[in-house]
């Protein structure tokens, strides 16, 4: 079939028009934003202070990214009602990075071009790491509620990075101590989910245990979403360990322990905060009874925390795993702006390091690397379908 050249040209014309339109749309949509970013140095008092919230707000990791967005929104609304800070209102801009490093850098530069003075986020360690390369250049203070990879605060290479969650190495030490001192284990199997968080934590636990002279029988990874794990379960049964330490999230955790208990493996199981989720108990049922989980200390009895939880409940939302950490990050940030009477990054940074702030996590401060002080890990055990904090 032959096409008349006219039609063909016309078709191309339409395509060009379309592409031009796409580009044009981009051009116009950013014209406005440019204006916002230009007047940073001498802002009039009427201009709001812009704070970015970045993390996974869609996709499969959204359950971790949405609660921080919600709690920060609640905290900001409350503050604005009370008159804001330094006489200025707070404006929150939320951006979705889907926890992908490639997108996180774009999101970071978008937030900077929108004139944020600080960012609360990102959620995943990988995305945070990528985004920090952008924020570092612009000297934007970043407080993550959830990125636990130890290397983020290592050697002070990110001087403007803070986090309100203790990093994984601290958690690994607590786990190893518990395994050696409380469980008195000699033979341990370490399993992970091949992921960023899971394998990172599992490797740290393994190192800690080895340095304490514990025999590591197996160090194995499972593929999340695989049809079944029975071959690995049988391998664990064969190795006959005292303790199984699993690094990863709750879906794989409950699958492994369920199959292990069905296979009559009597070893104790221990995991990190990735498993401290109500659905872990809901899905695992009777098979997860007795499971040990390390997680930040219980804060549900603090007055401030109760209030935030109630505010969330009124909106039909939940604090999730990192919502309270994000709320605390916001509180610390506002306090820093308040005490330094400035929105300049250097001043905020210094104030963050000096202040002691009462937050939803209790009274916290930051050390010289930007790691949180005052929020440690404790060990929980599943008992009667509830996480119970252990005193050991």
């Amino acid at each position, binding site marked *: 079939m032959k096409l008349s050249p006219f039609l063909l040209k016309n078709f191309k014309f339409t395509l060009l028009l379309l592409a031009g339109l796409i580009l044009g749309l981009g051009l116009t949509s950013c014209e406005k934003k440019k204006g916002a970013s230009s007047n940073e140095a001498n802002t009039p008092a009427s201009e709001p202070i812009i704070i970015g919230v970045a993390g996974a707000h869609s996709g499969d990791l959204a359950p971790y990214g949405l609660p921080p967005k919600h709690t920060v929104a609640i905290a900001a609304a409350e503050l604005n009602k009370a008159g804001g800070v330094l006489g200025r209102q707070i404006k929150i801009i939320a951006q979705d990075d889907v926890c992908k490093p490639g997108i996180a850098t774009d999101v970071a530069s978008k937030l900077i071009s929108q004139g944020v003075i600080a960012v609360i986020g990102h959620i995943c360690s990988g995305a945070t790491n990528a985004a920090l390369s952008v924020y570092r250049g612009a000297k934007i203070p970043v407080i993550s509620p959830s990125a636990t990879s130890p290397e983020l605060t290592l050697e002070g290479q990110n001087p403007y990075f803070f986090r309100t969650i203790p990093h994984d190495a601290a958690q690994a030490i607590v786990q190893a101590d518990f395994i050696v001192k409380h469980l008195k284990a000699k033979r341990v199997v370490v399993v992970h989910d091949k992921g960023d968080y899971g394998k990172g934590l599992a490797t740290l636990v393994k190192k800690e245990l080895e340095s304490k002279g514990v025999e590591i029988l197996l160090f194995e990874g499972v593929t999340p979403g695989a049809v*079944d794990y*029975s*071959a690995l379960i049988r391998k664990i*049964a064969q190795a006959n360990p005292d303790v199984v330490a699993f690094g990863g999230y709750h879906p794989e955790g409950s699958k492994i322990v369920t199959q292990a208990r*069905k*296979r009559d493996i009597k070893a104790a199981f221990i995991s990190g905060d990735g498993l401290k989720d109500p659905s872990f108990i809901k899905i695992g049922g009777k098979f997860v009874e007795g499971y040990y989980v390390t997680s930040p200390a219980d804060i549900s009895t603090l007055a401030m925390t109760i209030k935030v939880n109630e505010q969330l409940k009124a909106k039909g939302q939940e604090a999730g795993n990192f919502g309270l950490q994000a709320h605390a990050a916001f509180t610390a940030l506002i306090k820093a702006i308040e005490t330094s009477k400035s929105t300049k990054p250097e001043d905020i940074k210094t104030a963050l390091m000096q202040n002691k702030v009462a937050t939803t996590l209790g009274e916290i401060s930051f050390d010289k690397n930007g790691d949180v002080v005052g929020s440690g890990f404790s060990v929980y055990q599943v008992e009667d379908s509830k996480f119970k904090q252990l005193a050991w």
Partner: protein
Amino acid sequence: MSTDGFQYFLELFFSGLTRGSIYALIALGYTMVYGIIGLINFAHGEVYMIAAFVGLTAAGACSIMGLGTISILIIALMAAMIWAAAYGYTIEKVAYSPLRGSSRLAPLISAIGMSIFLREYVILVQTADFVSFPSLIFEIADFKFLGGYIQPTEMLITLVSVVVMVTLFLFMGYSKSGKAMRAIEQDQEMARLLGVNVDKVISLTFMTGSALAAVGAILISSHIGQINYNIGFIVGIKAFTAAVLGGIGSIPGAALGGLILGLTESFATGYVSSDYEDVFAFSLLVLILILRPAGLLGTSTQEKV
């Protein structure tokens, strides 16, 4: 130690057998569709996932109504099969049938698009989280079989798969529709001339393949105990690998391919490391295809110019 070693081997064999049966069951869907219209149905894994969700809904509704275990299992299975077949039929009509006769790659992209659409659809109308799936098969403790521990669900999965595959084999060999399918596989135009309703038979193929995936979905979901929108992806890729391994287009090939893949993964985990189970599986595939470019039981057609 030697009896211990044998018991360990036997247990890994059971694991491999279970995995292999599931791969084979899903692989049948790929292989039937490929055989008849030469298309890799990338959305097949998504049908598997949707079937699991339909099964969960049906089981939930039944258990609230207070039905017994066996009737819940049967109703969930039937519902999953019916809706999986309906989805398979609709996917074919929407995404593939308008593309018949175009280049080989267009339906592939349309399939990838369909697969993205279906995953997002389930996230939107259900949830992105993992949800608990009830154990629809009787709860019995593991028991010893030939000296190795085996889970009753594992035995059931293997058994059901074998029955389904034998039935399908007989259906393809002796029923009228089965013969029509094979006729279209050989020569679509000739079959049409001889009075076979090609469109209808293609639809039937999609529906059969999807219903088989639904059986797999219900069995494995109640074995594992949880599902989410992503479960179709890995199973889909593995089943597709199994289908190619055995020779795509061949039904006994799919069974053999699934079995070999399952056993390889299981033994790789057991004797080497689970970190590399997928590496072993794919390496085996490459090796077999280099030696037999059309898969184990596939017939390599001599091409004429």
